[in-house]
């Protein structure tokens, strides 16, 4: 059973639109949530992260919204660019074990 769930599996947006990626988790001990971006043929790379004491984290066009009570978070990519086309992984950590990853959302941005 996946402890970290992501939706949708895939998402297509036009250039300039906002892409919204969803993530939810089960384990209430998770307190750190990094999002990783992965391009084909490469390993994942950290994009942005948030700790459970915050409800929002912004870095340029990427924003994480976090709802601790509902155990949900989302990644918003505003003004999407073709170069943002990649697979995005939500992960969770409680520092007691390795990162727990979701299955990813594949984002395609068309010009």
């Amino acid at each position: 059973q996946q402890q970290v769930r992501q939706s949708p599996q895939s998402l297509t947006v036009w250039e300039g639109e906002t892409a919204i990626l969803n993530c939810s988790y089960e384990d209430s001990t998770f307190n750190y949530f990094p999002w990783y971006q992965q391009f084909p043929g490469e390993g994942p790379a950290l994009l942005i992260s948030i700790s459970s004491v915050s409800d929002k984290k912004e870095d340029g066009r990427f924003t994480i919204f976090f709802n601790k009570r509902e155990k949900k978070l989302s990644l918003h990519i505003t003004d999407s660019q073709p170069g943002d086309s990649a697979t995005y992984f939500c992960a969770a950590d409680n520092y007691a074990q390795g990162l727990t990853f979701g299955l990813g959302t594949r984002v395609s941005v068309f010009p």
Partner: protein
Amino acid sequence: DAGVTQTPRHEVAEKGQTIILKCEPVSGHNDLFWYRQTKIQGLELLSYFRSKSLMEDGGAFKDRFKAEMLNSSFSTLKIQPTEPKDSAVYLCASSLDRLYEQYFGPGTRLTVL
């Protein structure tokens, strides 16, 4: 600065063979992780080393998978014997410390026939 290096990038093995995948972490990093990536299961932790000591050995992967950290700058993942279900991308990652970002290598794509 050199990132995480993994070799080979691609490996094809016959069922029953022994294969060894290699990883060089970022210089100075103390933590090293091995993950397996498939479309169905996503990224699964195989092993976790802290300062060369094995902290986690991935439970279900113990029987045919063995990761070793021979020194602070080199790790291997041995799969013996290989099975077709082992076909996946194997990723190595390192971090300065558990509280810091994990840097991933490009992965080794393993195909077992």
